[in-house]
């Protein structure tokens, strides 16, 4: 066994949240080591060149809600991060019709009116309702979730903050807020908009990455993730990281290193070291021990507590609760290197909205049926997909004239059913080809000739994402974003503040509040909690308060 080295803190897993937490801790003066089992940092936010000349953002593919406070605190622009906004998107039908989502208000009004004149007002009402909820929710993202069962002054304070904000909404809006948080995206949209294609376009963001359908209660609020970025004209909240998602991770790694933090790749945590009832470091695969009184895990809750902590170190009821935490694989990823630009005959010529998110789902019921397939253990026969062609905006993604398509596919079960048996091993070559064909059939129907442009492609089933990135079941949010697993319930009731029953072991990934997406909020919140715990807040604490 090699001589144990020691640090103030070890971050187990170099995903974007781990790097964020590490950077904050390093800036506060701690000696920090990030250990990452892969050959590059980033977790699901990586760029790889699988075909020479083409950059693949293999897993996560858009910079959704990267908290501007984090980008500012860590000076990510200086470390090379540039987020280029994409504007608009479109949904196509097999019949040659389409709905284009324009960011320009007038163009959007006219586009809605073209399909359904009444829906112009319906969309206005819808957007206003969502924006009102965004205003309410946004300040909660960078706060800790209170534990309603606790009498601790901080919990009571946070609970009071939450209740006061609710109360300030006024009675009717408060009712609307509760409805928004509990309704399905389908029912919510049905209350505003008539045209099926417009609804299908807007509903997609309510189901991405979740094991829920458009008519499952609790999916409406996920719309916030799409709208939050548009608030206050914060342009660029949704966009492509120039150079692919790896650029986000590279910038965070840069910030970490600039603050004195260290990173070790090809270093997989085998288990978390426990000494005298507290975390004491990690043991890497191969047996190397690294000591630290503080271990912050960027792995999901199940992998951390069930997979890496020796039995007996954590109380049984906590482990039971972790087992109950739902992490379901529901999505796959298809990355394609294209020899030329895909053509959509419905649209004449060049259109800015083709640089946004493209879909081919025509109605809410079509999306719901895709979910029913998943429940039964099948990948969707007519899957929902979210296709982006980042090379239309970022010239570094593909050789000149060529393109890169990044296609997020919903739904794909982790444990595929075959003859009534569900097993991830069923994801063999035939299954992969089947899912790929289902997606390409849909694309080909709205973009004839697409197949002919394919130079290289890779399909990543949930089981691949789990194997490569380490996310349980390949779930991109490290746990379902259902309301029984949000706020004070995330990941485990009573342990929502990044802590665990094992002193010194912390959770910094999106299994913790406020959940998934490349937001960096969980990592930043965790770092704040850790620093508060160490009473070493200092300037960073102040920076948080200011933010």
């Amino acid at each position: 066994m090699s001589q144990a080295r020691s640090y103030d803190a070890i971050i187990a897993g170099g995903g974007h949240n781990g790097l964020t937490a590490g950077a904050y801790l390093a800036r506060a003066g701690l000696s920090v080591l990030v250990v990452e089992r892969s050959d590059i940092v980033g977790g699901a936010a990586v760029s790889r060149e699988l075909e020479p000349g083409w950059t693949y953002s293999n897993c996560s593919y858009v910079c959704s809600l990267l908290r501007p406070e984090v980008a500012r605190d860590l000076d990510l622009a200086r470390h090379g991060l540039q987020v280029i906004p994409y504007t608009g998107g479109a949904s196509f039908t097999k019949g040659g019709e389409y709905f284009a989502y324009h960011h320009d208000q007038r163009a959007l009004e006219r586009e809605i009116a073209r399909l359904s004149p009444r829906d112009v007002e319906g969309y206005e009402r819808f957007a206003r309702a969502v924006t009102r909820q965004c205003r309410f929710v946004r300040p909660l993202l960078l706060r800790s979730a209170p534990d309603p069962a606790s009498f601790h002054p901080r919990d009571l304070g946070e609970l009071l903050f939450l209740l006061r904000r609710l109360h300030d909404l006024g009675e009717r809006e408060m009712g609307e807020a509760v409805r928004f948080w509990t309704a399905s995206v389908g029912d919510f949209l049905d209350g505003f908009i008539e045209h099926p294609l417009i609804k299908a376009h807007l509903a997609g963001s309510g189901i991405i990455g979740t094991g829920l359908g458009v008519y499952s209660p609790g999916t409406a609020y996920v719309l916030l993730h799409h709208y939050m970025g548009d608030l206050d004209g914060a342009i660029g909240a949704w966009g492509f990281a120039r150079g692919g998602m790896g650029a986000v991770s590279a910038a965070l790694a840069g910030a970490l290193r600039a603050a004195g933090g260290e990173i070790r790749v090809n270093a997989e945590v085998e288990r978390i070291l426990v000494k005298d009832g507290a975390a004491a470091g990690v043991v890497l695969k191969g047996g190397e021990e690294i000591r630290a009184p503080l271990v912050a895990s960027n792995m999901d809750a199940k992998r951390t507590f069930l997979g890496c902590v020796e039995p007996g170190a954590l109380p049984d009821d906590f482990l039971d609760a972790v087992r109950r935490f739902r992490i379901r694989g529901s999505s796959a990823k298809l990355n394609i290197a294209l020899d030329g630009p895909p053509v959509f005959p419905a649209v004449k010529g060049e259109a800015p909205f083709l640089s946004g998110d493209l879909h081919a789902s025509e109605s809410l019921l079509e999306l719901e049926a895709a979910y029913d397939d998943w429940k039964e253990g099948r990948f969707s026969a007519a899957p929902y997909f979210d296709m982006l062609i980042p090379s239309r905006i970022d010239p570094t993604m593909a050789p000149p004239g060529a393109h890169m398509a990044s296609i997020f596919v919903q739904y794909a079960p982790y444990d595929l059913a075959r003859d009534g048996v569900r097993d991830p091993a069923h994801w063999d070559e035939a299954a992969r080809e089947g899912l790929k064909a289902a997606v390409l059939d849909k694309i080909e129907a709205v973009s004839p000739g697409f197949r002919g442009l394919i130079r290289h492609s890779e399909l990543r089933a949930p089981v691949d994402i789990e194997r490569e990135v380490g996310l349980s079941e390949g779930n991109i949010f490290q746990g379902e974003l259902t309301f029984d697993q949000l706020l004070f319930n995330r990941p485990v009731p009573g342990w929502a503040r990044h802590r665990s029953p094992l002193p010194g072991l912390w959770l910094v990934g999106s299994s913790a509040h406020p959940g998934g997406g490349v937001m960096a909020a969980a990592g930043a919140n965790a770092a704040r909690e850790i620093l508060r715990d160490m009473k070493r807040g200092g300037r960073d604490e102040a920076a948080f308060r200011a933010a």
Partner: protein
Amino acid sequence: MSRAPSLSGPLPGPFHPRLEAASTAKDWADWAGVLSPRKLDATGREYFAIRNQAALIDISPMRKYRIEGPEAERVLNRVVTRDVAKIAPGRVGYALWCDEDGMAIDDGTIFRLGPERFRLCCQERMLTWLIDAAEGLDAAVSDETEALAALALQGPTSFSVLEAAGLQVSSLRPFDLAEPEPGLLVSRTGFTGDLGYELWIATEHALALWDRLIEAGRVFGILPAGMEALDMARIEAGFPMTGFDFQSIHAAERPSRGRTPFELGLGRHVDFAKGHFNGRRALLALKEEPPKRRLVTLDIDGSRAASGALLYRRGMFGRWREVGHVTSALWSPTAKRNVAFAEIEGEAEGADLFAEIYLFKEGKWERRMARARPGPRAAFRPDRARATPPARR
């Protein structure tokens, strides 16, 4: 079916070819999705055309809705706070309408084209609102915004222009409407407080009407005018405007921005005796409370328009206490007053107020606390606006 992708921004309206030709300033704005001139040449000249000659203003971007059927009156009475039954056929009436909490959605004019035919003109989109108001009632609602072009002909010589154009409107009293020719509706209405008319015609005949009025008006000094001149005239005339002097609750992301008719000084347009209308029960309760804020008109010292100024009063120990803000402001070239619409806290009404005005003076910003006194609702509304038949010039 394939179509070219939509362009961004506003699109040309029915009079655009003439506006484009008349525009030397090339100063365009977006009015409800229609490319509209802020000014065509010079705002000052266009303003004085309103007050001295006749100004021709494209008001086609107004939303226009047709409500027709045996229960059309009931539909409108369900929506607006005034009693629509009191608008006789051939008359136009001002109205405003509120949401369920009694917060103003918009205001506009109701044209009673016949016993069972109405047109509602306003700023906000109201199609689905009207359709839902018609639920269970025997009336049809349609959007005429794009089918119908509209011109405002405003100013002391406007009557003479119409007469010279061969349109017989001498008997029209204020708020009357007539159809002097098939397909052309003329109402004696406007947003300037001066003598003036509004003309309504199918979009395909828009340009011919423009040409006819310009030709007839040449000797009466007719001048195309833009939105800035119109805005000056309406502030002088004391007409508050949705989106500027108050926020439509339907367009408010912050629910607290809603304002009641009482707060807007429009309580006289709320008729509790006519039966239920949207927001009636909420307004009935609010009527008993002193308004939290008031939209008032102010007369401010000095000649610098107080646009966007915060309003203060002296508080304890002589410290300034913020009590409101200016919503629209203008140095009135005709009344020679520095006038403004302002929203102030209810309890600040009647107090000594000061407007905080920032002045850029040769490279340096200076702050002036200008005294603001209650002003008349209208700084300028000449008698000629009401004479029937109007004077010829």
